[in-house]
């Protein structure tokens, strides 16, 4: 440690000290209301000194099933979001000013609207006597209402709707960062449009794709409201299981064990995709 006199002597140190003071209140809040409570919760899972609670999560068939269901749903949502978002992001980079404004509006208005409002709207659309079934019946296409709600399909539609913008934004940002001279050069060298996309645009946009996939996968893994409302009890995700343990069964140690597993999976996915992104960046300097 240096003496206070040395502190005063060095402007760089004074600067660091001032910056630290600026950040301190927020860091205190994050420590007291985020890091500490979460660690405290996680420690509850091993509070009895055994790994019994964690074993229950990974050995009991019922809970393993919920975990796999959650992973399956998160995976499906990620793939569907990517399939929808990539073309949209690509189109946005080519759109004129009016197209861009309209596109942004169509992305940002739902993005900023409450998940609850949107989930409710999907119930209106997909319900047994909802808008879609009503229209199909009036058109004579179906005789009995299709089961669009209270099943996996309904949950997927609702979740994809919430998460598509999270996929579009990073891909769009990555596409914008591509030097426009590169596709132009490829074109000058005689590459076809498809070849330009496949060999230039696509590889260079992969960091954005990875970032979007990580975000969407991680967010959907922890989803609660949409599956609870659109699944109608037919779809159980891990976040719903945690809520049930705390609210109905008051089984805090088991809720803590479930949380630990959910958090571990989340962090592993995040770290893995982070590594992939770095690889992609290296591959496309």
């Amino acid at each position: 440690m240096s003496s206070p006199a040395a502190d005063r002597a060095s402007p760089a140190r004074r600067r660091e000290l001032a910056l630290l003071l600026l950040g301190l209140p927020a860091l205190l809040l994050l420590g007291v209301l985020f890091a500490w409570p979460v660690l405290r919760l996680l420690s509850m899972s091993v509070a009895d000194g055994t790994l019994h609670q964690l074993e229950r999560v990974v050995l009991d068939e019922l809970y393993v099933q919920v975990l796999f269901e959650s992973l399956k749903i998160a995976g499906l949502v990620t793939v569907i979001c990517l399939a929808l978002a990539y073309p949209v992001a690509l189109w946005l980079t080519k759109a004129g000013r009016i197209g861009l404004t309209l596109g942004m509006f169509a992305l940002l208005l739902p993005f900023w609207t409450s998940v609850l409002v949107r989930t409710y709207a999907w119930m209106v659309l997909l319900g047994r006597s909802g808008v879609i079934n009503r229209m199909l019946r009036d058109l004579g296409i179906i005789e009995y209402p299709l089961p669009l709600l209270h099943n996996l399909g309904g949950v997927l539609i609702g979740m994809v709707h919430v998460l598509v913008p999270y996929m579009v934004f990073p891909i769009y940002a990555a596409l914008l960062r591509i030097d426009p001279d590169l596709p132009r050069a490829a074109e000058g060298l005689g590459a076809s449009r498809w070849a330009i996309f496949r060999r230039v645009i696509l590889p260079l946009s992969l960091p954005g794709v990875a970032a979007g996939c990580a975000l969407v996968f991680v967010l959907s893994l922890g989803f609660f409201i949409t599956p609870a409302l659109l699944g109608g009890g037919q779809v159980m995700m891990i976040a719903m299981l945690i809520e049930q343990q705390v609210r109905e069964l008051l089984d805090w140690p088991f809720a803590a064990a479930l949380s630990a597993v959910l958090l571990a999976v989340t962090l592993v996915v995040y770290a893995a995709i982070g590594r992939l992104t770095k690889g992609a960046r290296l591959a496309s300097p």
Partner: protein
Amino acid sequence: MPRRERRAGLPAILLACFATVVFVFLMLPLLVVFPISVSSAAYLQFPPPGFSWQWFQRYFNDPDWIDATIRSFKVAAVCTVLAMTLGVPLSFLLVRSRRRGIWILDRLAAAPIIVPTIILSISIYSIFVRLQLIGEWYGVAIAHTVLALPFVVILVGAGLRGFDESQEQAAIGLGASWPVAVWRITLPQLRPSLISAGFLAFISSFDELVVAMFLSGASMTLPKKMFDNIMMEIDPTIAAVSVTQILLVALCLGLTALFGKGALATTMSR
């Protein structure tokens, strides 16, 4: 060399069609609640049999709904103020510090978006129960601040990274103190980031349900009230509430586009 004619070929048309379909998919649920909210039918019926303002009247005349709405505004306003006053200075630390370990704090500040909300909710709940903060609106506001901080730090941090610090040093060289230089030179140039961070903090709190479900107790926020309404009895009052919210968001979006030049772009590429 003659430039090859760039015609909008079949792929471009297909791409535009596909994008349009996705935009319709995104907008459809927002549009569908409008006719429902002015329906004269007592239950979900589509197309509505007639026009009526009754659901809006019920929303605005029901003290429960209005209380919940006002409470949500209070929570979101306090959350925004807290998230900005804490988050903007934190961004300065995270962007400008040259200490080696700073990336750890950077991860910590971004972590509340990555850690599933349900985990954060029950963690804070277990502590607030002891402090007897359940059912207090400011407890919800403080918890929401934790969730809103990452948005502020990411957006303002991005703005700050793009800011040329030598302007600040020039002001100091001309005799301004550092706080004055930041206030008069740096912050005005960060306006787009600050505006979008503020709006995002506000909206993230105003819409938040999971934390509020655990912490708000009997004094419900608007999302909690809506959730209960959807669970118990779906009457078109909730459509009227939804339409009011969608219009408010559209207004905010318009205002941001107008006053925060480039703010929307920052939101997009955060």
